[in-house]
């Protein structure tokens, strides 16, 4: 008999998989929503192929009494909706895996997979409910039953979802759901499975949100007035979110002809006083490099959201990696002050995107938010974002008649006005320029202006966010991470139960917090965990602090590294 959570775990890891366009996403939506509304802690992470139909995509859903925020390898229950199950899923099936599948569809594909296959007649029940399209909802019903979700919750969701459709559609869906629950009751009666996740009730008032929406909310909260971008996975979600709320929330949204137009429209708008952003991936940022350089010399604020995916070039378009750190820190020609954030959680994605707009406005520099496909397409429940105490700082002044856009100041920051805000004329120039903004070939002015811009680095450094340290206060080993690796390593460390090992996580990767070297030097052994092939962050740390992190756990398969793999490697290295 299968009991979940299994011995030693507090969560159940359920994986749905199936062809694109075959309803996996519907099942996922109903389940995730129902689970959260039932008060479970839920984590869900999607991986999908770069194609529209067919193939095989999957979603991992972890259900727990504790908070869950990371991707694991382990599959407790696998629910394949279609055949053609891919190696990345097969390889995760163990003796402990219960596979609930319809033999009519899956046939003997998984017979030698090592898991226990239990036939559930999803398709037949779907047909009974009204046709093959309802198979997914049958599956949702089965799982709802399994996890003990009160039936009225998914029922209500289905009613809402199909409220605009005919009564017949609603009835068929409800019937499919009920048939799925019936399948569970049969399983239960047969005594083959039992699931009990305790602790329901706490998460029901929380937000269930993914990285893409967290970044978008942060941007809107930060006063974003305009986004112009070119669609590119995995960064398109932010553009889509903004488009959806464009009219209701007063934000201008443009899908440009290419990334170069996108950044230049954004810079033109920012020059005109809009709080502007772009959202793209590494390839788009490569194309925007010249625009970043323009932002550098013109001192026009700009927020760039970069959703990383494996490169070089097209790489793996719908997959994940942390391979664009070097590009974010160094793109554009010439010396350009900037800041780069890399949030490790939904809360930080929201908060740092919010902060990015203020920082960009205050220092008149480009500010990057580095996320990745994994973070953007993962969901979990979080307490509602706190907005009290946050202020949108526009950092604009009315210009006087003799306004000088590039007045040289001690901080390097020139009071910023925009056309139409005051009496003065506002000039901006991509050449080296004088205080008014006119091009000059003056070899005394040039270093003065360079120095003025470089002085802003000091101010940016004062605002830098501290890295987060967790684990024992006095540690011998220190694991260093950035961006989406945060929760993976947090959980891996819990699982690995390593003594004297702490975790130092960076949500801001450039500039580095001045305390960085101090933390590193306290450890006897430092290990970087990164999602790229060379250890870009470890190299950056060495550049900034001189500290060499020799031990690196580097992962670049295209999928996020699972908790267990990190734990395993850490144990190997540290025990």
């Amino acid at each position: 008999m299968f009991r979940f959570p299994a011995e030693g775990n507090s969560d159940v890891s359920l994986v749905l998989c199936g062809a694109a366009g075959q309803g996996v996403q519907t099942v996922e939506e109903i389940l995730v929503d129902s689970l959260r509304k039932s008060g479970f802690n839920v984590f869900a992470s999607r991986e999908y192929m770069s194609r529209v139909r067919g193939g095989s995509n999957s979603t991992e859903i972890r259900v727990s009494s504790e908070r869950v925020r990371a991707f694991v390898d382990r599959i407790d229950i696998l629910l394949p909706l279609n055949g053609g199950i891919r190696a990345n899923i097969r390889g995760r099936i163990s003796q402990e895996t219960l596979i609930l599948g319809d033999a009519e569809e899956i046939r003997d594909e998984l017979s030698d997979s090592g898991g226990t296959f239990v036939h559930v007649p999803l398709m037949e029940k779907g047909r009974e409910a009204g046709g093959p399209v309802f198979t997914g909802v049958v599956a949702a019903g089965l799982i709802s039953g399994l996890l003990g979700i009160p039936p009225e919750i998914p029922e209500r969701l289905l009613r809402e979802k199909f409220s605009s459709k005919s009564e017949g559609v609603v009835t068929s869906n409800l019937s499919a759901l009920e048939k799925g629950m019936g399948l569970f009751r049969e399983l239960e009666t047969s005594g083959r499975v039992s699931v009990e996740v305790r602790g329901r009730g706490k998460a029901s008032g929380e937000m269930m949100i993914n990285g893409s929406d967290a970044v978008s909310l942060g941007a809107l909260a930060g006063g974003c007035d305009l986004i112009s971008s070119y669609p590119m996975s995995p960064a398109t979600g932010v553009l889509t979110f903004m488009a959806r709320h464009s009219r209701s929330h007063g934000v201008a949204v443009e899908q440009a002809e290419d990334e170069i137009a996108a950044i230049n429209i954004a810079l033109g708008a920012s020059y005109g006083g809009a709080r502007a952003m772009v959202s793209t991936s590494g390839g788009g940022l490569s194309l925007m490099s010249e625009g970043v350089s323009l932002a550098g010399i013109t001192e026009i604020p700009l927020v760039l959201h970069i959703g990383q995916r494996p490169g070089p070039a097209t790489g793996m378009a719908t997959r994940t990696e942390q391979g664009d750190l070097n590009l974010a820190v160094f793109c554009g020609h010439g010396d350009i002050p900037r800041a780069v954030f890399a949030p490790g959680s939904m809360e930080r994605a929201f908060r740092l995107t919010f902060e990015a707009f203020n920082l960009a406005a205050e220092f008149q520099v480009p500010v990057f938010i580095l996320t990745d496909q994994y973070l953007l397409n993962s969901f979990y429940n979080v307490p509602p974002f706190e907005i009290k105490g946050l202020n949108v700082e526009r950092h604009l002044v009315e210009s006087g008649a003799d306004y000088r856009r590039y007045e040289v100041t001690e901080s390097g920051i020139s009071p910023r006005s925009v056309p139409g805000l005051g009496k003065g004329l506002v000039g901006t120039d991509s050449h080296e320029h004088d205080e008014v903004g006119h091009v000059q070939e003056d070899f005394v002015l040039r270093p003065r202006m360079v120095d003025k811009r470089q002085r802003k680095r000091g101010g940016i450094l004062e605002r830098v966010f501290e890295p987060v340290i967790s684990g024992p206060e006095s540690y011998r080993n220190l694991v260093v991470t950035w961006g989406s690796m945060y929760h993976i390593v947090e959980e891996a460390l819990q699982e690995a139960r390593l003594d004297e090992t702490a975790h130092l996580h960076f949500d801001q990767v450039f500039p580095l917090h001045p305390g960085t070297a101090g933390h590193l030097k306290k450890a006897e052994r430092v290990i970087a965990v990164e999602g790229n092939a060379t250890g870009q962050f470890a190299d950056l740390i060495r550049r900034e602090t001189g500290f060499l992190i020799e031990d690196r756990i580097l992962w670049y398969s295209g999928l996020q590294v699972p908790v267990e793999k990190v734990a395993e490697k850490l144990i190997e290295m540290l025990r």
Partner: protein
Amino acid sequence: MDHRIYDLEGIDVQWCPGCGDFQIMEALKKALAGLDLPPERVVLFSGIGQAAKMPHFMKGHFFNGLHGRSISNATGMKVANRDMTVIAIGGDGDMYGEGGNHFIHTIRRNPDITNLVHNNMVYGLTKGQASPTSPVGFKTSIQVDGVFSEPFNPVAVAVSMGASFVARAFSGNVEQTTEIIKKAIIHKGYSLVDIFQPCVSFNKVNTFAWFKKNTFDLSEDHDPSDLKSALERALEGPPYPLGVIYQTEGRPTFEDSMGCYHRDDTPLCRRAYGPERVEDLIASFQ
């Protein structure tokens, strides 16, 4: 309004004596002053090139950006603040070469900006390479055997795309150029003014005399609202017709279509959103 209100004092205009750019600047100043627009209402955008230096030689707000990108910058500005008169200035290399993709797609978007292209059929600033509009056979230090590619006809492309205002002018005729620029500014939507401009330093083929000889005024009875005859005019030449070749009124502008103006006319720089703007959305995730 006297157009000298646009003069910038004490500056060293960097164009070669005899360059057509001087006359285009004069025409622009006259057009703006003629429309009673003070410099505080006008934002000049430009890229890189000789033509693109103009914002450093006259008054106005200005954004002298990258080579080839000024109409994108200008489009963003127009969204940020619809009260401003936005002009984007550049050369043929800037607008049709490096910036060719933005040219096409800005036509599609139709923001209310005026695009002046100083078409001297050569790269002036970088000392005489061929531009997209250089004639076949034109010899330069790079096109040593003469230009091979067919010249780009911006007017024909713009008309064939249904751009809402398309005109051709010649710097040598300041008065006509002034009138055309005025119309372009008044026109609500994207206006292209392709302006033939002799480059005395690097184009010894398409000289002042050549342009003079190879252009003529569009007859009074050309109807710029007639797409078919506009296209014929656009493809005509040499000699090339000068004047407003195509104009269609009433197409909505890009900026007016933006969601940010759906409920609120305030220019973006004057908005005062606070984070409470997302309260409803946060709730929707709960």
